[in-house]
């Protein structure tokens, strides 16, 4: 009962946010929503099937450029459809990356995903006829029928609504046969195999779903930020995403959201520390990992966070 009240309260807060929060925090909340979708997607891969990716900025870039190019050249496509296309395109790339990654573990998987991130930024630089290369791309406002989502508030509602849908889907995935198979792989790969779970297939599916989530988030990122350039999708961003799920809690949907919230705000707040930003950020993260190795989600009663 109290859980229902809490979720209801949270939904009311989300809906009322643009009226109670200062303007800048509307924008920040949109970024939190975008990052939460990425963190959930990354968690489906890393938290559920033990495949840690340091290349999710690459997936974000693919989704972002897909949505931006659609908004520029096919304005009749409404933004939800554009986001879906961005997710599907990215999901397909996820399969292409997931299949060779099946054979890799640990450090080698890290290296492969890391390299993928660099390949994507290189591709953006080299496909400059389409992407404008290093100069970047100004993203027009998201089209929705006859409206244009040109204000911080409208963009916030778009990202919040999409994030909500993605959260509900993710929570439900954990309860399905597919979701159980993911978690079973994390718990014990041998036991999953002897239970008839096609580990290779599900690991690839996890890559695809994870990439799909990140691609949708990328589309939102394009509209929220309004400007894309390969500089946006560097290794720092990929590491930020990994940090979100570690701080929040591996394999936890609410943990992903809290992780995204904490890292986004911390990142923003530390911008004021200029040269010391990377140092402080790293130190805070190490402290969190030392004292809360299960992430913030582990600070709450177990079982509930799955």
């Amino acid at each position, binding site marked *: 009962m109290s859980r229902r009240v809490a979720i209801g309260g949270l939904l009311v807060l989300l809906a009322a946010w643009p009226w109670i929060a200062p303007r800048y925090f509307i924008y920040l909340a949109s970024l939190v929503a975008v990052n939460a979708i990425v963190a959930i997607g990354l968690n489906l891969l890393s938290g559920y099937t033990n495949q840690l990716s340091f290349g999710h900025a690459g997936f974000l870039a693919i989704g972002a450029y897909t949505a931006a190019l659609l908004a520029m050249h096919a304005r009749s496509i409404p933004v939800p459809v554009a986001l879906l296309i961005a997710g599907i395109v990215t999901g397909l790339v996820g399969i292409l990356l997931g299949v060779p990654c099946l054979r890799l573990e640990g450090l080698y998987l890290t290296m492969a995903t890391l390299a993928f991130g660099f390949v994507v930024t290189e591709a953006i630089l080299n496909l400059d006829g389409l992407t404008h290369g290093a100069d970047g791309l100004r993203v027009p406002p998201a089209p929705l029928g006859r409206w244009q989502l040109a204000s911080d508030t409208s963009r916030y509602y778009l990202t919040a609504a999409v994030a909500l849908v993605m959260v509900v889907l993710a929570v439900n995935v954990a309860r399905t*046969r597919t979701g*159980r*198979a993911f*978690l*079973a792989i994390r*718990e*014990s790969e*041998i*036991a*999953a*195999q*002897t*239970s*008839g*779970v*096609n*580990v*290779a*297939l599900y690991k690839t599916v996890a890559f695809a779903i994870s990439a799909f989530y990140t691609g949708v988030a990328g589309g939102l990122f394009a509209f929220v930020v309004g400007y894309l350039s390969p500089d946006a999708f560097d290794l720092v961003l990929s590491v930020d995403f990994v940090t979100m799920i570690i701080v929040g809690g591996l394999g936890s949907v609410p943990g992903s959201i809290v992780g995204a919230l904490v890292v986004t705000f911390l990142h923003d707040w530390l911008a004021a520390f200029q040269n010391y930003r990377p140092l402080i950020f790293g130190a805070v993260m190490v402290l969190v990992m030392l004292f809360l190795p299960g992430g913030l989600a582990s600070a709450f009663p177990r*079982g509930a966070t799955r």
Partner: protein
Amino acid sequence: MTPLLELVAVSVAYGKRRALEDVSLHVDAGEIVTLLGANGAGKSTTLRAISGLVRPARGRIMYRGTDVTAAAADAIVAAGVGHVPEGREIFPDFSVHENLLVGGHVAGRDDVAPRVERAYVMFPVLGERRAQRAGTLSGGEQQMLAIARALMAGPALLLLDEPSLGLAPRLAHEIFRVIRQVNETGVTILLVEQNARRALGLAHRGYVLETGRIVAAGTAASLAADPAIRAAYLGLAAADAGH
């Protein structure tokens, strides 16, 4: 009659190390067959080869007359071969109930619920603890859960790897009672067990593995009577044979 399972000259290597060398054996429908041998003799490797977790370098594995040597692990489970791996390998963070649901991964949608109910009838203690985290069960309960989970896929052949390992004698006895009960429901059993005396008491036939090769085979009674086997595996001196 075609055996339910047949291994023809199967060899398995881990890197350069030969784990199995020309192993041939068969298991007929309805039997309980046991594999005896010292640690490292290749018992677990035989089971892993059958369930597709390792690939034989040579030889053939036939299940119901079909070659499954190259089949994927999940396809073998779906074909009706269940495997309870050594050390039980339950999903510790899942509830008992969730463990069973994963076990029913390859089962048809309508089969899952009745099989879960059947498991709770066969293992009442699991029914009592269905919501409990599997990692908090006792060793004997975890072993029962592992068997119950393997039965969720509705196997015709169940591979059991050291089911009594680390269990108190009373619990080991209970597990063996369960294995006999499972066999009586029509499930064929291939059992790897360090307690040879108990295994031979339960099985119809047996094979003895030494450093990857089969060195003896026969009915449980004939193996139990073999002085060499008595000496090596039953802990009895040859002189005591007539005792």
